[in-house]
């Protein structure tokens, strides 16, 4: 999604204003002149300044492009499905990670995504379990990263 600078400029100004207001609400420590609000206030001011510059530049020229351009998403249905699956599956995997465990989540995620992306069945059957297993063992056994094993934990 590409936004026109006519929208980005004011958007940054609003965002910067919001940051300054939020910074003003930060608790002050008595006797501290330069406190927790200083840096966020400066960044908020900078956002307003740069947003103003971008917006001024865009509004001083005639409008030659759409305000919102989503043409990059005009792709094949299969590609759209893959994108939706990927984002949806990443969200689901994050939510179910602790209860289902990494090996099972990883296996389902990889298998479905590889199918959607057009990988050959034999490749999927070999690569998906092996890669998930290798990743799981590298992280848990070598790097001592506690990945939840879930129901497949008994076999690993």
């Amino acid at each position, binding site marked *: *999604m*590409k936004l026109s600078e006519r929208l980005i400029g004011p958007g*940054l100004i609003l965002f910067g204003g919001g*940051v300054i207001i*939020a910074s003003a609400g*930060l*608790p002050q*420590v008595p006797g*501290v*002149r*330069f*406190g*927790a609000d*200083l*840096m*966020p206030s400066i*960044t*908020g001011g*900078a*956002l307003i300044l*740069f*947003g103003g510059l*971008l917006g001024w530049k865009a509004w001083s020229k005639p409008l030659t492009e759409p305000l919102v351009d989503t043409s*990059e*998403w005009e*792709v*094949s249905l*299969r*590609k*759209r499905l*893959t*994108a939706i699956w*990927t*984002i949806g599956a*990443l969200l689901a*995997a*994050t939510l179910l*990670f*602790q209860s289902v465990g*990494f090996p099972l989540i*990883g296996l389902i*995620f*990889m298998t479905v*995504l*590889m199918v959607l*992306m*057009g*990988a050959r069945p034999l*490749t999927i059957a070999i*690569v*998906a379990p092996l*890669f*998930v297993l290798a*990743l799981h063992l*590298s*992280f848990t056994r*070598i*790097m*001592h*990263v506690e990945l939840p094993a879930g129901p497949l934990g008994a076999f690993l």
Partner: protein
Amino acid sequence: MMSFETFETAFFMVMAPSVLLAILIGSVYGLFIGALPGLTATMATALLVPITFYMEPLAAIALIVSSTAMAITAGDIPGALIRIPGTPASAAYTEEAYEMTRQGKAGEVLSLGFFFSALGGLIGATVLLVSGPALAQVSLNFSSFEFFWLATLGLMTCALVSSDNPIRGAVSLVIGLLLSTVGLDVTTGQPRFTFDVLELSGGISFIPVMIGMFALSEIIRGFTALERELPPAPKVGDIKPYRGMFALLRRYPMSVVRGTSLGSAVGALPGVGGDLAAWIAYGMSRKFSKTPEKFGTGHPEGLVEATSSNNAGLSSAWIPALVFGIPGDAVTAIAVGVLFMKGVSPGPRLFIENPTMPTAIILTFFVANLLLLPLGWFAIKGARHVLSVPRAVIVPMILLCCFVGSYAVNNTLFDVWTMLVAGVVGYLLERNGFPIAPIILGLVLGPVLERNFIMSMQIARGDLLGFFERPVAGGLGIVVCTILVLAIHRAWTRRGQGPDASDPATVLPDVPNSTKGNLQ
């Protein structure tokens, strides 16, 4: 001045089989860790500590030195091949390296990374050996004013070189700085923008943000009509490690000199050196280049300077740790801890009472950096296999690595959420022509900048002229202000001249569908 006897004794200490074996194991381990997205040199070092309990002091430090040097260099591998930078420093040149890989120059870009990293590391180690104490003395005289200006210089360079439009670069930088303010305030310790979320108290971790903004955003883009073709896999025999490296050295000798000098000087500064050196080096390379317009299109010149400065900085980062016992970053802090544990107290007295030990430690840098070349050879040869994996297989693999890599940072799902959000935001920002790199550097250096800014403001009692009163700070301040004025002047004079180079359409050119990958 070090005596020949000291050097000779130290040399034979390093040549002991146990030390050489430790260096070899550390290097192989570092190569493995560095090449995995999400795992850092700091993590690699921390994991080695329990093993060092059972080792001799020199072998223990050699293990840490070699694993760090290799992990940081190997961090360039995923950056070059799949656009996931291993470290904030390698984020400086990830786009350039990935562009070279997309042009079918994977072998060249990896060779360049290992060769010039080794060269930079060797020069940095020489600097450490020859002028370590003197450099440390200089760096210890730096106050918050100098650190503030240095951090500003690095951040500004990054914002200016990462985009044709300085305003867009500046916006990205400000977003990074704003993200860095999340968490406990660096001066008063008050929670700031944490929204009662416990995980936010420690701030936003830069690793998930880096993974999301570089890797996930690229994958999201792959689902759109803006999809870029994956880098082509070189044919068997096409990858010839290190071929043409001496020609590059002859072509860009000044880049190597500048990169290593800068890396050695900036790297010695506690806390900021390692990450800053590569960014400033890349910006400086573009500034002094005869062909600055080629930067960002897969041009090796900036890579030569930035990679050599990266490893030179890595060596000199040990200067304050060894000479004064003051670690400048997490890796050297762990190493100092290990030295204390082994009954070796780093500091000026160590150089007087037991000079062979610090000399031997410095010599391990030489061996570790030399080992980069043969181990790098295997990594470069293996790159062909990574690039020959079809898109339908590599994309799911990258996504899973992103997921686990983000989780591994703190063993928390919060970092996975951070990665996901960063990926979507990164995609939107890039689509609209805002560069990603300044966000990462802003996030990493934000606390350093803020701490030194607040401290300086308190010392100067709010008088901004106080930032120019010390000689070095004043000099750095003038450099920063001059660069800023020149950038504004350039942007002003370019106004209205021809098509806007910063237009997102030129940043992300639409590629005809027929030439895109095989997902259709």
